């Protein structure tokens, strides 16, 4: 027949897919949200050097800076993302994204930030 793939081939493909890219759907969604909403200031590479920064009085955070990022808790990152910089005594230039992203998307974003800095909160 040869029309349908063999059951073992399908199972193997599923297993390879599941093990090779764990959490891909979650990560790509946060990555896409980062590219859309965060990169304009924090940069396409997350280095704090976005296209908007030249005339900003406070420069955006470098999300690849593990030393700084490890001082912030996941809750701080969540709050800043959802409610803006003022909510954690930071700059008004960091806006609130709570009307744009869902709580689940912001939680995913916090995890994505941890992949950018390759760090965890040192207190956690």
């Amino acid at each position: 027949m040869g029309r349908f793939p063999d059951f073992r081939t399908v199972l193997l493909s599923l297993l390879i897919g599941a093990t090779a890219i764990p959490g891909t759907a979650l990560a790509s969604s946060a990555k896409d949200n980062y590219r859309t909403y965060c990169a304009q200031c924090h940069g396409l590479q997350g280095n704090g050097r976005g296209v908007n920064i030249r005339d900003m009085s406070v420069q955006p955070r470098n999300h690849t800076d593990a030393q700084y990022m490890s001082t912030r808790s996941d809750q701080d990152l969540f709050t800043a993302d959802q409610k803006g910089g003022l909510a954690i005594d930071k700059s008004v230039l960091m806006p609130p994204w709570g009307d744009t992203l869902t709580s689940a998307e912001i939680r995913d974003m916090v995890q994505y930030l941890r992949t950018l800095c390759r760090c965890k909160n040192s207190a956690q």
Partner: protein
Amino acid sequence: MKRLVIVLSGFVLSALLSGPIENARAGQKGMELLMSRCASCHNLHGPAPTTLAALWARKGPDMFYAGSKYRKKWLVSWLEHPVRIRPAGMFYADHVVPGPEGDVIDPSTLKPHMALSPADARLAAEALMSLRGHDDLIAKETVPPGSISKSMGALVFDKFLGCIACHRIEPDYGGLSGPELYTAGDRLRPRFMASYIRSPQAWDPKIWMPNKHVSDSRIVQLVHYLQALSKGGSHG
């Protein structure tokens, strides 16, 4: 005598109808113009993108509520002599590349908007003004006549609300990922500006402009400031 009455009646009837008929013909021509020359880049029917994929694929601003958004005089002028409003293009991330000092716009990826003849610009603007949307949102807004000094306006815009991060308020000052705002007062209707500031997501659910929960009084200040920035801005 009877024939004269018939001829005169026909003449009068024709004169009475010629205005509306001419207008209808012009309207139809304008819509045909939009469909043939604008629809490939602009959404004329709605709705606005509700996914990032659709947002990224958008080539030009949505026009299905153009009549609620733009001022006709500006539309006619701009369509004849288009100049870039979004310094980094429709979706900034598609036109920005990493550089040694940070991300920069790659001008080679930006395409100029076509210019229309004066006659076509009038037809297109007329047709665009007939496209209305979100009247419910517009109806909620009131922008009383008033003014604000540019220094106070800049304080609100920049220091209090941080809008400067993404928008230019002078040709070479401000952020680049949003449309420039030094011509917004000429370009946009005041109540649209107020409504969009109040909730960008109500107009464009996935847009990268955040809802900063700006108070009513600050919204009015911002609209007055944008009007002050572009000297031609007027209330209405």
